Structures are given as structure tokens and as C-alpha cells.
């Protein structure tokens, strides 16, 4: 009986280790993409591409990097992260409103 429980728990541990490995693969992939986006962002500025697209594209690259960071490195894609998501999205909404206010409505 004890032998059987041991073998089941051993099996469960193996499954978990496999899950962690798979997660690791995703994380390394997202790291590679983040490095790539950083290179693109710096490259665009160093090569002095003068176009009104540059700033929006830079911001877009930053947002994609942060999404990778939050969802893969900080595990927000995993189960049990409804509360963190609520906190972060609440924070982000107020953050956007704050920046809009400071840059448009307030007279400095």
C-alpha cells in the first residue's frame, strides 16, 4: 500500500517537473524575444529613422516586452492570478489617466 502511494507521488512529481520544464522553455523564448525587441528599439534610434512612426513603434515594443515580463516571468498567465490581474489592470488604468492628465490638462 505504501509502495503504491510512493509510486503515485513519484509519478506526480515527474509530471510537475515536466510542467516546470515546459514553462522554462516559454520563459527562455520570451527572454529571446525581449532581447530582439530591445535590439530593434535601439537600432531604430541609432539609425536615426526620422518618421512620426518611430515613437509609437518604440512604445509598442515596450508594451510587448512588459506583457512578456508580467505574463511569463511573473507567471500572470498561470492559474490563481485573477486577483493580481485585477490589481495590475486597476493600477494600469489609473496610471494611464494620471499620465494623460499630467501631459494635457495640467498647466505647468
Amino acid at each position, binding site marked *: 500500500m505504501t509502495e503504491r502511494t510512493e509510486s503515485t507521488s513519484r509519478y506526480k512529481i515527474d509530471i510537475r517537473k515536466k510542467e516546470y520544464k515546459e514553462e*522554462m522553455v516559454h520563459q527562455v523564448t520570451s527572454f529571446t524575444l525581449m532581447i530582439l525587441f530591445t535590439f530593434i528599439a535601439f537600432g531604430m*534610434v541609432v539609425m536615426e529613422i526620422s518618421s512620426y512612426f518611430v515613437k509609437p513603434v518604440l512604445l509598442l515594443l515596450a508594451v510587448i516586452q512588459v506583457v512578456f515580463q508580467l505574463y511569463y516571468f511573473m507567471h500572470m498567465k498561470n492559474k490563481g492570478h485573477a486577483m*493580481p490581474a485585477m*490589481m495590475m489592470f486597476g493600477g494600469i488604468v489609473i496610471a494611464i489617466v494620471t499620465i494623460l492628465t499630467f501631459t494635457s490638462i495640467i498647466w505647468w
Partner: protein
Amino acid sequence: MSHEDVLNPNQLPHDPEKATLEGKNKFIGFWMFLGGETVLFASLFGTYLALVRSTSGENTPENLFGLELVFIMTMLLLTSSLTSVYAMYHMKNHDFKKMQLWLGITVLLGLGFLGCEIYEFYHYIHEYGFTFRSSAFGSAFYTLVGFHGGHVVFGLSWIVALMIRNQKRGLNLYNAPKFYIASLYWHFIDVVWVFIFTVVYLMGKVG
């Protein structure tokens, strides 16, 4: 789960950081804090964006910023984010020594970043005479980037304190949440840096 079980390294469940009620509460509470931090940094970014054109003399973002150093700093911090992911991977597999090793590498990379930032500020002050009091742009710049640097200092002290304090204890259900939360904080520092190098340095160079 009894007190002995909590402190026994051989009894670790999977996801040791959320196995106890205390760990769960820390996890929720810390994400609440991170939501607040997002708003805090947003107000600093808003101030910076509003004051970035209020320069004095030659010290404009275009003249001051050098992208080489910022690129090195970005790579250091991004890599340190990955090494702390490795540390948490070893924590979940209950390998305390490897976790300590990867946290140590994270700390070294963070120190490298900090060294670059101190050099940068020193350079601005002594070569350009660009200080906190030079202009509204100066105040906004040093407040935003300096606040982020302060977070790096705090994060490094936090991780080092945890590593030293738990060196002989090994991993257990009492300290696993602490390590996990410190690593979340470290990732958040990188999140803020992504926006700093984009909004302050790159967009400052574009003009």
C-alpha cells in the same frame, strides 16, 4: 500541516510559495502593492513628460544621453530578470543550493547595473554640470531615474538579506514565499526600466 512539517525541507509541496495561508496572503498583498507602484511610477513619468522640454542651456536630452551605456544597463537588467526566473525554477524543484547560486548571479548583474547608473549620474554632474537643480527637466529626470535606482538598491539589499538569513536553514514553507515575492519585485524593477529606457532615453534621442 503542523509546524514541524512547515519547516521540514523534505515535506515541500509543489508551489511552496503558495502552500500556506501566510504565503497566499503575502502573494495577494504584494500584487496589491505592485498595482500601487504602477500608479506611483506613472505619476513620475507624467511629471517627466510634462517637464522634459523645460531645459536650461545646452543640457537637453539629445545632448546628454549616450545610448551605449543605456544599452549595457538594459542588457544587465534584462538578463538579471532571467536569472531570477532560473532561481524560482530551482525553488519549485526544491533545489536550494542552485536557487542561491542563481540569486547570487542576479545580485551581481544588479550591482553591475547600479554601478553603470552611478557612473552615468556622476558623468552628468561633473562633465555637463547637469544636476537636480539645473532645470525642471533635471529635477524630473533625477527623480524618475533615481527613484528606479532606489528600487534597485532596495531589491538588491532584500535579496542579499534573504540569502544570508536563510543560508543554513535551507528551503522551507516559511521562507519560500519570501524568496518568491523578492523575485516578483525584481521583475517589476525590470518592467519599470523597460519604460524608462524607451520613454526617457530612446524617445529623448528621437526628440
